[in-house]
Each structure stands twice: as structure tokens, then as C-alpha cells.
């Protein structure tokens, strides 16, 4: 776990890895900057959620810059050696500011995570559809119900071509899913009445087809998470570490008993990859 000032999901993420059979260590970024070679002692690098450096200059910007200026080679060779990198929420925001997930091209950065369409921080539960492709973390998973908690989680690409390339490369592994797609019934609330009654029909892939609040931030292409071309680096806005125990589910008191939370499989996949 790479933590920085303002990282605040490191303990429960470490707990999730430990539940999955991993042996997590939490390292301050200063220690990593002092001893970048020691990254090779690990198999998985996780950048957990929080507000690194307060997100004062944009979500993940300062830690992303530090990595880009001082640790880019170390992380690159870490990945090349067949290891895994996971960025959750703020960690996803950080990874996007490096070149590990969506590298910049000659025209500059290609993708970002920016202020939610609602204009504010929101914590709520979403369903994400999973197309794992070669993404190690998501192997064998079709759908998850996970919490999001962020203000800057709207995935935005520079132009449609970027999204098409990512889609073609199988990088768009996690997408928000509409409740109607999940066959769940419920009493409509304010949010339902104020949105269009039918699922929007997107004009292009770049638009979101899942309405608010199921797509909680207006992300383009309803993208909740992407992996890199190798499938060994994953960044996602929802928090799988917050649903590793059955009682973390928002409806555990009314639905059939679960053995574990949806999110645990993400961590189990990572650990099993090395067994």
C-alpha cells in the first residue's frame, strides 16, 4: 500500500488483501522515494483511496506528479516484471496522472477524472458490469455492487477516438449499469422521477447511456474503471475494499445471506495470480 499525506483507505484495503491471503505492508511515499528499488520485494502495488495531498491541485495530481518525476522507471519495470498495480478511487486518479493507465500522446493527456456532473462529493452504491478481458483483478467476475464516494470521478477522454481505442484494446473493463438492467424492483425515489423515464439512447460511445444516479458522476461511456494494455494495471472509482464482509452490503438485512462481499474477489484474484 503506497500511502501519502491524505491517503485514508489504506487500512481497510490492507485488511481486504489480508483476507484474500496476501501479506500487505503500508509504506509512506517518502520511504518509497528513498528506496525505490525495494519495490521489487513486492508483487502487488496498491494506491488506495483518500485525498492524497488534499487533492489540492486536482484529484491525485500531486502524488501523480511525484510518481511521474521520481518513480516512473521503478513502476514501469515493476509492471514489466509481471507484477500487478491497483489504484482505487484516489489511486485511480493518481494512476491516470502517470503514464501507466492511459499514456499521454504527442497532443498531451488523453483521459482524466473530473468533477461529478452533480458538482459535489457523493457517497452511494452502484452496480458495475464487468468485462474482464485480460484484466487479472477482474477475472471471472460479471457484475459487482460497490460503493462510490468521490467528488471527482467523472471519467472524461480527450475525444471519441481515445475511447474507441481503449474499447478496442479491451481496456474499458468496468462500466456503471442501470438498475433496469439488473431486474431489480423498488419504489421510485426523487432521483428516478427527475430523470428521463427511459434509458438514454446514446448518439456515440462517448456519451453516457446510464442515467444518474446509477452512473453517479456522468462518466463518459459510463466508465467506472479501466485497465492498461497488459491487463495487470487496474484503476477504478468504486471501492471494492468496502464490501469484503457480508454486513457491509447496504441490504444485508433484507436479502439472502451472502458468504462474502462482492469486492473480495478482486483481491483474491490478485493473490491467486501468484499462486
Amino acid at each position: 500500500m503506497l500511502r501519502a499525506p491524505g491517503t485514508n483507505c489504506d487500512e481497510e484495503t490492507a485488511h481486504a488483501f489480508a483476507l484474500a491471503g496476501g501479506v500487505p505492508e503500508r509504506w509512506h511515499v517518502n520511504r518509497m522515494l528513498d528506496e525505490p528499488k525495494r519495490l521489487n520485494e513486492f508483487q502487488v502495488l496498491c494506491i488506495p483511496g483518500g485525498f492524497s495531498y488534499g487533492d489540492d491541485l486536482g484529484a491525485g495530481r500531486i502524488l501523480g506528479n511525484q510518481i511521474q518525476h521520481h518513480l516512473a522507471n521503478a513502476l514501469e519495470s515493476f509492471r514489466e516484471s509481471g507484477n500487478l498495480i491497483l489504484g482505487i478511487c484516489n489511486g485511480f486518479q493518481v494512476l491516470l496522472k502517470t503514464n501507466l493507465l492511459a499514456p499521454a500522446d504527442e497532443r498531451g493527456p488523453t483521459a482524466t477524472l473530473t468533477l461529478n456532473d452533480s458538482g459535489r462529493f457523493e457517497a452511494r452504491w452502484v452496480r458495475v458490469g464487468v468485462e474482464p478481458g485480460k484484466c487479472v483483478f477482474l477475472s471471472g467476475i460479471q457484475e459487482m455492487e460497490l460503493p462510490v464516494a468521490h467528488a471527482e470521478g467523472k471519467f472524461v477522454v480527450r475525444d471519441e477516438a481515445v475511447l474507441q481505442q481503449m474499447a478496442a484494446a479491451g481496456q474499458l473493463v468496468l462500466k456503471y449499469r442501470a438498475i433496469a438492467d439488473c431486474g431489480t424492483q423498488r419504489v421510485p425515489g426523487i432521483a428516478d422521477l427527475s430523470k428521463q423515464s427511459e434509458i438514454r439512447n446514446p448518439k456515440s460511445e462517448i456519451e453516457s447511456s446510464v442515467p444518474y444516479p446509477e452512473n453517479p458522476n456522468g462518466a463518459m461511456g459510463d466508465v467506472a474503471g479501466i485497465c492498461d494494455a497488459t491487463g495487470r494495471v487496474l484503476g477504478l472509482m468504486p471501492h471494492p475494499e468496502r464490501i469484503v464482509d457480508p454486513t457491509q452490503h447496504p441490504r444485508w438485512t433484507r436479502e439472502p445471506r451472502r458468504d462474502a462481499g462482492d469486492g473480495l474477489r478482486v483481491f483474491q484474484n490478485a493473490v491467486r495470480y501468484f499462486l
Partner: protein
Amino acid sequence: MLWEIDIHSADHPSGGARQADRAGERVAAAARELGLADNLRVTTARGFLVQGQSLDKSSIVRLANELLVDAVVERAVIGTVGNASLTDCGLRHPEGTRDCGLADGSSNPKSEIRNPKSSVPTVTVLLKPGVMDPVAQSALMAAADLAIHPEAIATLRKYWIDGADDAQIETIGRKLLANDAIEQVFFGPLELQRLEVGHPYKFELRTIALRDLNDDALMRLSREGQLYLQLAEMQTIQRHFRELGREPSDAELETIAQTWSEHCSHKTLAGRIAYRDEHGERHFENMLKETIFAATREIRERLGSDDWCVSVFEDNAGVVRFDNEFNLAFKVETHNHPSALEPYGGANTGVGGVIRDVMGTGLGAKPIASTDVFCFAPPDLGLKRAGASPPPIGAEDGPARSDSAETLPAGVIHPRRVMRGVVEGVRDYGNRMGIPTVNGAVYFDVRYLGNPLVYCGNVGLLPRDKSYKRAEPGDLIVTVGGRTGRDGIHGATFSSAELTSHSEHLSGGAVQIGNAIEEKKVLDVLLAARDRGLFHAVTDCGAGGFSSAVGEMGEKIGVEVHLDRAPLKYEGLSYTEIWIAEAQERMVLAVPEDRWPELDALCQSENVEATVIGRFVPTGRLQLFYNGERVADLAMQFLHKGRPPVVRQAVYERLRIAAPRGYPGLRIDPPNPQSEIRNPKSPDHTATLLRILASLNVASKEWIVRQYDHEVQGGSVVKPFVGAANDGPSDAAVLRPVLGSRRGVVIACGMNPHYGDFDPYHMAASAIDEAVRNCVAVGADPQRIAILDNFCWGDCERPETLGSLVRAAIACHDVAIALGTPFISGKDSLNNEFSYTDSTGQRQTIAIPSSLLISAMGQVEDVSRCVTMDLKQPGNLLYLVGETRDELGGSHFNLVNDLQGGQVPTVNPERACRTFAAVHRAINSGLVRACHDLSEGGLTVAAAEMAFAGGFGARIEIDAMPASTAIDSPSVRLFSESNTRFLCEVLSERADEFERVFSGVPSARIGEVVADERLVIAAGGTKLIDAGIAELKHVWQGSLGW
């Protein structure tokens, strides 16, 4: 060179991605709401001012591109301050432009700014010099990574406002865009040469000649020096220095004022009080000790060896046993006056402050949950009514109503702005700290205008062997965390004074802005240092700054502090300012000399500043030095024990509430408990239910709650919202603070200021009952619930105001003992009044309603036994537990029907105790599928909430409900707010078992869950309520669905 970087949102191919336009739209909408201007077109930018001798254009462009601008969605305009291009580019930029537009005046090669409307007026908002600017601090630090080293950076917000005249823009700038307490507004192009970075301080010892002052002059000194001490206290100080044969230094006088302030010493409630009510007279030597503390002492004695209280009313927070390894700490604070002046900063630092309280408990607890309770005036006060929304309650229509916020008294920030600011302040601190905000409430009453209440609570987890602390002689005094600046000077004394319409000018310095990440950094190293045993004691720097923190820690030893050694944010602070400033995010540690090197290294490794500023010395004196010169030398004995006792008079009489009138837009109807309830003619119960659901106190607070991260730390078990669509209102929050364990902590609260208008005794009893029953409703063990009191009252120099408080405290004593729920911590905030001059030139004072918040912390052995309030399955039975009485006084039934009078709800503590035990047994045995407490709106509201949360209907017959005496009126059965009642959903095959558990406790089967999505409540076969659950939910979500 002073550069400006303006950052605009770029157009984007997806359309709709322009966030800045949305910010502009929000400004335009707010201006319309507040009646300042219609049909504005507002464009916004955020920006930075960057100052540096050697900064050339290329490094500024690099700074912008690589650090400040998100090139996918933003673009920058750069120039030296004052350059015309910076003001020109307001109204939209050409599509697809993403490079930085360079506009330094000398070269503008691409001329990308194609703004046809350069005449659109601009407003620029900057923080005042010296106000905390975390973003600028981060930018300075991160710039160093790029090998760019500016001297100073400041942030700004910029607005281009089209469609308003100069006068309107001036008003919008001052009322809407900026807060004068912390910000400065510039109209038109910025004319700024350089950023203010402070001036060197020249030492000069200041003494205050008070030995020869007469009483009038003493009081003038108290007032004008913002000491806010009373005459007897000033006289005592005078006598003390006459005996010493010298005049006090300013630092000495300030230290005494801080230590003796109401905020720090609670001298009113912990003082002598002569109290009189209908039972006669009673004399208190120490009112709190003889009521609230006494209850705890009695409960602990009764528990004997099973006593689970650990440290109560001693440390910064109350501490109780959790399991074999850990204790729990809980503290609730208020930050009312700062929030009245600057809602965002006040609430922000309120959260930060109570978190530090918990961090400073024992040897440092880890904060695991936050709570927040707010009291506001109705957010639509004096505003145009929105078309379709249901009628808001509490701000009734009246002839005095006006269309403009301008009709509110001067010095008042509009309640809507207060509410938004407070919510955002709480949100930004708690979320950044990574502490889940899990429980809270919001109450509305017009009397909170000008003096809103902001209660912030925090729960911490503390290893059992780290629960006590003691500084030792010889220990170093170490300050850790943020630097000291001029922020928050006189916060402690100011909070003990009454607010007036001039407070915003007088006390601007009392406002603080927080930096949550600084506090998170301190927390990270503090817990590591605790576990390595690197210090003997810790406390937080709160009100009174070093003065309070160091003074308290060294009370029993003596201290020697070198103020020049404290790290400062900027030059120019005098020794007294350093001593009393309330700069945030600082902790003070007592560190044995041989552990200091390790602590120092630990702090450095995580970029946390730690500095030795003095030493605990066995002198019994408080001695301050600046550059070796002695600036204060006080005996600890005088400082902590020298305050003269004052006997205050307290009288309780049946209601006499001042009703200030004479100001347009403000109508306060004093409740009149003596009068009988007029029954509404041909009552429409369904309409009443809908109006209660829509009323501000009852309506869904989802808009607020969703802005708080309530799941961080991964222990969430029962969330604030539950049910089929995750949007039903939970009674209490449950979390697992130790991830490897099944044991849970339960957090809830109870409060009802309306009841206090009738009788503060019953208000307090009801609040305790409500807090406890909320805990019990989710599964907490009623024998393991600790409670906290927070009294927010008006001016207690008035005997009848103090009398109503004493009466509430007596109820706290009686009910806590009967229920076995010890008080473990508490706080009071007095003088919550707002004075203004009305339109006829008369001085008016609004006192808040007596507001007692009870917070409760319960425990569950195994969280998998917890239940939630949403109906689970058609066919299950509904049981009403508890007795219904004719208690509509202060009820929401009265409120929405504009009725007065009636009996306020009371508590039968002995029966409550048995009822809570039975409910717990039933839940713990797995007999209960859903459980909800009955509070505002009584049975009908509870049933409606359970139904729409679960997505099922319910059919209820009220004839069978347990009632004290024959109740004829269906209104009473439906809407009475009698305490100690629950509605439980039970599997039909376990009904017998359930009924056996409740033998001897009032309970009755009153209905069942049905698949049909309607709530039907009937009496004797006649339908009284019949409504679709979708409609009920829609109305409930509508009022505050911002």
C-alpha cells in the same frame, strides 16, 4: 513579478462537460433565489497568483501545464496581474482550445481569446492576508518538485457577471461571492503589486495598567480588550496584581481571560446556582456535579465490578470499555458562533476541533466516526416560494413575508447560505480525514436565525493500555502539526459573548479555516508515536491555543515556554498572539527528553513539523519567554483556582418566551402551551401525514448525508440510509471499528427543541429516551449505552433562562439513573442570542430555543443480529410496542396544522427501562425483521417510512394499540409523539414467541405488511389514512431534495 493563472473549463466534444458554467449557473440561481438579480449570465474561473523575482514566462507556463491545469477539461490564461487579457476572456473560449493562452501583453502569438464582450464586469475574490490557504500551500510544495520556487502563491476565484448593473454586482460580490470575514473582493481588473507575506515583529513588552482603574474602567477594559470577563473577575485580577505590586503583561491578562472564559471553564453550569421552581428552592454548589456527574457516579457504583466507564468528565472525551483490547472515546462539541460568521470555515474547524479532542484523549484515540447535528432557520425564510414544492413547515405564510433576503436583519447570513456552507464545511473536513460521518440530524426553527447551531461529534478507538496520560516534570513541550498564524485570535472569549449584527466586523479574526490534510498527517504520526511510547501526554490546541493546551497540561507541575521558538506561518506575530492564536491542526505533546530524537525523526519522515517550545518544570508557575525576556509569570494556583465564585439566580416558570417583532420578513410565533388544542374541523389525516413528511425536520436529509463519506474505514454495518432502494431513514448507525471482530458500536442522537418551549424537563427526558431508543431499535444492548449532553442555551445571566437549563439538567440526572445510561462527556454553549436593530430603530434580541442534544453510543455483541427499519416481507405482522398517551404538545401534528397547546410527551423511566430490555431481547433472539422508533409524527410517520423504505405496503388497525386511558381522538392515536415506542415487523410463525417476550410490557399486534403498495391505517373499519407509498416517499424526499 506577480503572475496570474486563470483556469477555465474547456469546451468538450461530449457537451455538457463544462463544470465552470455549472458553477456560474449556481451563482446565477443563488442570486435569483436571494432576490439580488434575475437572469444573470455568470462565467467562472479558478486561479492562482504566483509571486517570484526570478519567475519567467516559461516556468509559469510549465507550472500551469504540469501542475495546475487538467488539460483534458481545462485551459489556462496566463499574464502578469492587471493584464487586460486576463479580464477579457470571460465569456467562453473557442472550441477545442486546450493550450495555455499566453497573455502577458508582450506576445500573444495564437490570440486564442476571441472574446467579443470584453466589457463584462469581473469580480475577483481573494483570501485576506493571513487566512489559511491550503491549496496555495500545496501548490508551493508541489512546485518544488518541478524545480520552480515561487516566493508566494495565493488562490483566487473569478466571476464574469453579465446582466447586472454596478450596484447589483457590488451586492452580489459582497453578499454571495465572498465572505467579508475571511475574503476580500476586487471589482474590475486586479490592481495588486505583491502578495502580503507579513512584516517583521519588533519585540516590546506590553503591560496593562489596571491596578488603579475603577469598576467602569475595568469593565471597559474587559469589553474592549475582548476579554469578556465579569466585574467580580476583573476585580479579583486587579487585587491579585495589587498584591504582587506590579501591572500584568498583556499575555498574562489574556491567559487569565482564556482560562476563565465560559468556553474553557464552564463557570456558569459548574458554579453556584440558587434555583427555584414549583417544588421550592434548591442550592447547588456545582450544578453539573450535582446533577449530571452525580447520575454517572450513582450508575457506576451500582455497576460495581461490572462498571464499564473508564474515564468520564476528565479527559478531552468520555471513555468507556469496548472489548478486551479497546476502549471507545466520544466527544461532541459545538461551533456555533464561528459558523454564524463564516458557515464553511466555522463548521470545517468545528469538525477538525472535535477530531483533535478525540486524538488528544488518553494517549491518542483513533477517530472512527463523526456525528453532526445542525439547527438552522428555515432555508426558505423570506424567499419567493418555489412553485410545485410542498408547503414548507416552520416558515408559515404571513403578511410580513417579503420577497427579498434584504429584509433580514443586518449581519445575518441567509439561512440557505448558512446551511450550504455548514454542510460543505463538515463534508470537506470529515471526508478528507477519512472518518465516516455516520449520524446526525437537522432541526429548523426561525429563532436560529443569526445564531445557527453546529454540533460536531467524534468517536475514537483507544487501546485499553493507552487510556491515561500524565506529563512528568522535565518533559519537553512539543508542538506538532500546523504552524501558528494569527487565525482565531479570541475565539474562546468570543464564543462566550452574545452575537450582534456587528460581530462580523468585530470578530473577523475569530474565524478559522481548516486544513484537514495537515490534521491527517498529524494523526498518522501521533498514532505511530503512541504505539512506540514516545510521549507521556497529549492534548489538542483548541480554543485558547497554546494558552489553554499548555496551561492545562502543566496545571499540576508548572511550565516554561519560549514563544519565539514556535514555528509561524508568517512574520509579525507578537508573543501574545503566538500564545493565544487558535491556528488549527496543532497538538501539544509532553515528551521525555530521551524519546525526542525518535519522535523528531518520525515526524520528519512524514513531513510533519515538530518543535520543542518549552519544558514542564516543577515550579507551579506558568512562565513565558520571548527571546529570553520574561513576558508572563503566573501562579498555576491563581490561574486555575483563583476565579471568584459567583452565585447565579435561576428560576423556572411556565414559559415566557420573548417574541421579537417589528422586522419585515421575520415572524416568530411564540408557542403557547397553556392553550387547549383546537381540533381541526373535519381532519384529513392523509393530508396531515403528507405535510408532516414534507416538513423540514422530518423530510429526507439525503442531500446532506450523501455528501458525507459514511463507509470509509470499511466498518459500516447499518448505514444512514437503508431499505430496498438504500434511501430509508435509519434509526442509528452501526459500525465495526475493529475489522477482524464482529462487535459493533451504535451511534444515535435525540433532540427536540420544540418540547423545551413547553417544559425543559420533559424535553430533556424525551431527548434521552429518543437517543436510547434509536440505539435499541437497531439492536444495541440498553445496559451498555453511554450518553453525552450538549446544552445550547440563551443568555444565562437571565434567571429564567438559567432556570430552564437547570430544570433540563435535573431531568438528565433522573432519567439517566433510571435507564442506567451514564453521561460520559458533555459541553455547554451559552449566550446563543442574536441582537439587531429593527426597521423602527429598536434593539431586538432573538434567543434560540433551549436546545439539548443527547448523543448516544451503544454496543452490540455481534453485528449480524442488527436490524434495520425497512419492511422486509408481505405477510409479516406489525406490533406496536409502548404506550400511547394524549401527548400532542410540541408535536408535528400541531406544527403542520398551526395548532397550539396540549401535553408535551413525558417519559415513564421505569417502564422505559423494561420496554428497552424487551425490545433488545426480541431483536437479539432474531424475532424482529424490522424495527423503527416512533418520534416526530408518531405512528403514522414511522409506518410510512418503514413502508416506502421496504417497498411494501402496510395495513394497520389502531383500535388495539396500547393506550394509557381511553383515547377518543383518532388524531392522538395517529400522531401522538409519546416516548418509548417502536413499530416492529415480526414473522407470523414467531408471533407467539414475540408476544411472550413482551408480557408485562405494553405491546399489541396492530397490522401486517402487504404486497399492495399502499399504507392504510383504519379505526373500527374506517380508513383514516390511505396513501400510495410512492407518493409518501416522493413528498418526504421533496422538501430538501436540493
